[in-house]
Each structure stands twice: as C-alpha cells, then as structure tokens.
C-alpha cells in the first residue's frame, strides 16, 4: 500500500513537472472549456421556450450546463491525457523503463489518471465553483457541495482514467479513443437532461460512468434528492471498470512479455 501511494504521488508530480510548463496550457485548461460552455449556453438560450420546464429558470439552466461541462471536461481529460502521454512515453522509450521496474501496475495507471485529473481540470473546476457560488447564495453548504462534487468527480474520473490508460498500454493504436468524445458527450447527457434522451440512447448511457457522475453532481447542486439506485448503478459501473482494467493489465503484461511489444511504437 505504501509503495502504491509513493507511485501515485510520483506520477502526479511527474505530470505536473513534465506537462505544465507553458502558458499555452491555460488555453486548453481554461479558455477552451469556457468557450465550449458559453457556446452551448447561448445556443440553447436562443430558443425562448426551452423544452424542459425545470430548466426554464436561467440560474438553474446555467448551473445545469456548467456542471455538465465540468463533468465532461474531467472525463475527456482522462482520454486526452492518457493517449497523449502514453504515446509520447512509448516513443521516447520511458514506458519500457517504467515497465521494467517492479512498480505496481494498477498504482501506475491510477496514479497517471490522478495526475491527469489534477493537471487538466483544476482550473476549470475552480472556474465552475466560482460561477456556481456567484449564481447561488453563498453559504457553507455550497462549500460542502463543492467538496462532495469534487470527491465524486475525482473518484469516477480516476477510475475511468485507469481504464483508458490500460487500453493505451495494451495497444499502440489507442488513437481511436479520441472518437469517444462526442458519443460520451451525447449519451452522458452533458447538454440536456437524461430523461430527454430517446429510449435507445438511454439504454446506451449506463456504459459511461460520466452519465452517473454528471447526474449526481447535478442532483447535489440543484437541490434534487440523489437517487440511491443511481449511486448503486455508479458503484456497479465503477466496479466493472476496475475489474476490466485489472484483467486487461494482466493480459497486456503477459502478452508484452511474450512478444516484446512494448518497445514498438
């Protein structure tokens, strides 16, 4: 356990030292998510009669959208960070040296995901929190809600990131994961309520943990009671993801030791 914590901490520090070096980061970490959020907001605001009566209130609508964007941003950061980082490390040979070490593989994967989460989402998280505090009445409860949401986002994104990282280790052609962005955005109901999705789409939604995560943080902030069934569904989904990550990691390790594939890029 101690070793796992050391590895996770090393991954977070490395992510910060290696990838947070230039001013261009501020564009990708803050400006683009904000632009994306306002694009969505003004697109929907153009329609006077928004189709969901619960969101007719501008404040509710604003909170609803920014929480959706925040959730999506966290999950998408895992895909971007995982694919880019591992591709680069595969090319420069660092990945081979990392896998030469006796480091716990799951600790490596989750440490990386945690590093990506902190690096890529902290600015937009702070921005979203400030917006939510400004449009709601500031109370200590809001602070607790922010901390609670942060914990939900941290847990779910990191577990999702672990899976993404394990896929990137398993195959050098993990670029296909970039195509997951738009479907995840749609099926997780980032820009509209889940109930508005057609039946077939609602059947696909549970595949993405972001669906539950966004649902829960919206429920926390928008005064809705958090559905216990949704929490159980989220825990089940996360357990399945952890199990897949574990199995995939084991299979990849055995396969790479057999073929020496880790050195290829």
């Amino acid at each position, binding site marked *: 356990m101690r070793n796992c914590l050391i590895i996770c901490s090393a991954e977070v520090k490395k992510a910060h030292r290696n990838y947070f070096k230039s001013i261009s980061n501020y564009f990708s970490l803050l400006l683009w998510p904000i632009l994306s959020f306002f694009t969505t907001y003004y697109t929907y605001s153009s329609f006077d009669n928004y189709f969901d009566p619960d969101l007719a209130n501008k404040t509710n609508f604003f909170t609803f959208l920014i929480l959706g964007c925040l959730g999506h941003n966290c999950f998408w950061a895992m895909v971007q960070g995982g694919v880019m980082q591992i591709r680069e490390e595969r090319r420069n040979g660092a990945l081979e040296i990392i896998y030469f070490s006796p480091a716990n593989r799951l600790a490596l994967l989750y440490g990386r995901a945690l590093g990506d989460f902190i690096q890529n989402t902290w600015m937009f998280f702070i921005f979203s929190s400030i917006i939510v505090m400004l449009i709601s009445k500031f109370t200590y409860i809001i602070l607790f809600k922010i901390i609670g949401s942060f914990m939900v986002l941290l847990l779910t994104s990191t577990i999702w990131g672990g899976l993404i990282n394990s896929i990137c280790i398993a195959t050098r052609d993990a670029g296909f994961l970039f195509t997951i962005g738009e479907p995840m955005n749609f099926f997780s109901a980032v820009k509209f309520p889940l109930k508005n999705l057609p039946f077939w789409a609602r059947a696909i939604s549970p595949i993405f943990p972001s669906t539950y995560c966004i649902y829960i943080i919206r429920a926390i902030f928008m005064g809705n009671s958090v559905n216990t069934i949704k929490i159980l569904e989220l825990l089940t989904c996360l357990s399945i993801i952890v199990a897949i990550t574990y199995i995939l990691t084991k299979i990849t390790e055995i396969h*790479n030791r057999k073929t020496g594939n880790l050195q290829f890029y």
Partner: protein
Amino acid sequence: MIQAKNLNKIYKIKMKKHIWNRSEIQYKEAVHDISMDIEKGKIVGLLGVNGAGKTTTIKMLSTMISPSSGTIHVDDIDAVKFPFHAKKIINLITGGERNIYWRLSARENLEYFGSLYGLTKTELKKRIDYCLSIVNLTKNADIPVEKYSKGMKQRLQIARGLINNPSYIFLDEPTLGIDILMAKELREYIKRITVEENKGVLLTTHYIAEADELCNYIYVINNGKIVSEGTANDLKKLYTSNYCLNFIFDCYNKSLFDDIAKLENIIKIELNPELHSIKLISKENLIKKIIQLSSNYKCNINQIKTEDSLEASLMQILKVGNSHA
C-alpha cells in the same frame, strides 16, 4: 549470481499479405539454447553482429520478455516465474538519449524512477545525491535534461540505472553514438561501479575494444546461438592463428628490411624506414628469425610488440559460426 540455462525464444511473426488475404504466420527462433552466468563484481560481455540475438537475450535476462523455454535465476529468485521479485535487484542502462524525461531535471528524473522502486523521500534523497555524485552531475542536477549534452544524458542514464542500488546491471550498448573521450569516461564509470560496488554487469556492445578493455568474460553470439565463450585472451588465443608482430630497430638497414620481407609465411608487411619499424602478420612466429637477422646486420632491436586482436578473433569466430549455420 545470474544463471541462465538453455534459453530459447521463438517469436511469432505475421507475414503481411494482400489486404484481403489472411496473414501468414511464421515462427522465428531468435535465441537457441543459450546458457550463461553473470557473477557479482564481474563484467560479462555479449558480442555479436546486428540481429545475432543480443537484445533478445538481454531482454530475457532482465525479465522484459519471457523465454519460450529455459530457466533464469537471479540469486535465488526464479526470474521467469517471479519477474517482479527479480526486477527489484536488477536495472537496465541503454545507450542513446531516450528513456528519460527531457523536460524534467536530472534530480526530478531520478526522483520519479526511484519512486517506481518504492523508495521513500529520505531514501530517495540519499540515493539521488549518491548516484549524481558517481556520474559527476551534482552541479547540474537541477537543470532540465533537454539542456544537457549527449554525454551528460548518457551519464544520467547510468545514474538512473543505479537508483535502486541493483545487484545486477544490464548495459545495452551504453557508449552508442558518443565521442571517444566520453566513451572512455563512461567505461571508467562502468569499471568503478562494478568493482567498488560489487555489481554484476552484462554488457552488449558493438565496440570490440570496449569489450576487450572491460569484460572479464565474453560470450559471442551468432544466429541466436553462443558460438564461443571465454576471457578476451582465451578467445584471442583460440581463434587467432596468425601472429601480429611489431619491431622497432635503432637504425634503418635496407638489406635487413629486404631480408625480413623475404621471409616465408608472411601474410602482410608494413615497412617504415623513417621510424625504423616493421609491422607484419605471419602464419608462424618469426621473432627468433628476425632477431637472428638483425644480429647478422648488427642492427639493434629497440622494441618488439606482439599484438592479438580481439576483433580478428571475433571475425574468425563468426566466420566459423556462419559456415556451420
């Protein structure tokens, strides 16, 4: 001690065919029945041409790939069954500028790679300071690696390879692409860590002189098989049937030089009247005959040098190996 017995590695290779046809699978035996020992405090060389099976062997011994058959024991650990246990006491140093993070400083790199071995903050600090001092990078420890020269990056690779205080180190062409001065310096580091820190080292290199200078024992590999083994001197004696002699006389005597050139069994001769020297390669040892001739002409010999070339031996070994293949 690392003991490898009867290692074999067979790769499955998919042969590319037309897009609509199923690819054909072929099996390639990269390594065949290799056995070797690596003792602590000794440098063992693994020599061979490109594609001979050096990298596959080093990767099997370092647990990066599993052998198709055979056993590897690192001290008392079965490295095939328990690679994670073996990984704790070994490390790998490769040549070139890859495998490290260029945006990080040397200290940050070592901090990261050391953490992968579960070293705590205090242990890391001590170990990093020590490793940096061994490779003379202490002064530049906090500069980003991208600002380093090629040689400094290679020294950092050595420090990285020492971070977990391994008992055994695998050096895969560590002086690849660096200048002769830096290569000499690196060879000094390698000698130092082997002797002073009692590490077992396996070295693969293309530079024969490097193996000759560093290795206590050498394995020559060709077509995936060990074709010869022994100390550098053993290999030279075993495979060099020719004599390489170098004479320096106190004066130049044309008749003497002409008579020497007429001796039988000379394969190649280089006469240098200005330096009063003769360098020759012969099938028999001509020292006695040349001393006799020089005394006949009353010309003193200032120096006699006999040279064995590991490179010549290696060529001979590989020639024999190929003719049997």
